[in-house]
């Protein structure tokens, strides 16, 4: 298949590309919103349901996404999501989430995705709401408001 070089796509993580994904980072002021990709990948190795992908622009790694995917319970939780500081503000985040929804639909026939956010002024709540996520009345770990998207 002849893919446009500026096409956004999700790649499986392998021994050949995990390191470049670990080098990605959000802006310094965003670092308390999300763990580093290295921590996330390490954490995934202890989880039964972790589903990880690198977010690529053409052949360039620009972000990372990790979902807690539990098809038996039909539960899909967006666990980590980040776009590298150098690629933020260009609409790639929104596109990447949409690509993620397509993959979750194709692979698991998922129709619902939940997530949670740290709710302060500069946090990502508005970003998720712009994608159609709705706040529930639940809090994850007692403090992070939960969001849900039907698709």
């Amino acid at each position: 298949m002849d893919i446009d070089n500026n096409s956004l796509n999700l790649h499986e993580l392998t021994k050949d590309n995990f390191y470049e994904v670990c080098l990605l980072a959000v802006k310094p002021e965003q670092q308390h919103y999300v763990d580093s990709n290295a921590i996330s990948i390490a954490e995934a190795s202890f989880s039964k349901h972790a589903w990880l992908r690198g977010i690529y622009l053409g052949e360039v790694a620009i972000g990372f996404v990790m979902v807690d995917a539990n098809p038996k319970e039909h539960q899909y939780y967006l666990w980590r999501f980040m776009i590298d500081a150098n690629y933020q503000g260009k609409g790639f985040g929104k596109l990447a989430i949409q690509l993620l929804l397509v993959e979750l639909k194709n692979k698991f026939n998922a129709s619902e995705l939940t997530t949670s956010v740290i709710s302060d002024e500069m946090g990502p709540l508005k970003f998720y709401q712009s994608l159609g996520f709705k706040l529930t009345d639940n809090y994850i770990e007692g403090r992070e408001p939960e969001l849900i998207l039907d698709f």
Partner: protein
Amino acid sequence: MVLIQEVESNSPHLIMLYQWFDREWDDVEPLASIKDGQVIPNPIIALKDGKLVGGLVFTRFLSPTTKAQAVWINAVFIKREDRQQGISSQLINHAEKLVKEMGESELLVFTQIPTLYSKLNWQVIETQDDHFVLKSSLVSS
């Protein structure tokens, strides 16, 4: 009761459908039945109790995978008050059957709402700026 049907390009329903398209999008390609010497499939409309509530039209354009002329869904529109009832899915399903019967090798769409298509088992081919190109699995198989 929603009725999905193909219509010829002289159907009076298409005048209203194109008015809706023009309000929703800039630069909607005018209705045509032939492009570059190849037939464009007929539009498909949705009628509810005999009244138009939405429709789907096709065009032809190069396929990013085969580089040959392919059929594309050019626009799908449902009236605001008739959304959330699965009518667009019915239109897209009908489009897939129609295009498959014509013996076409691909049906593509350029859209900002990929999940509308992925829930019908379409596959993403690529992104272009803030749009997605998807391909029908039914027509390709």
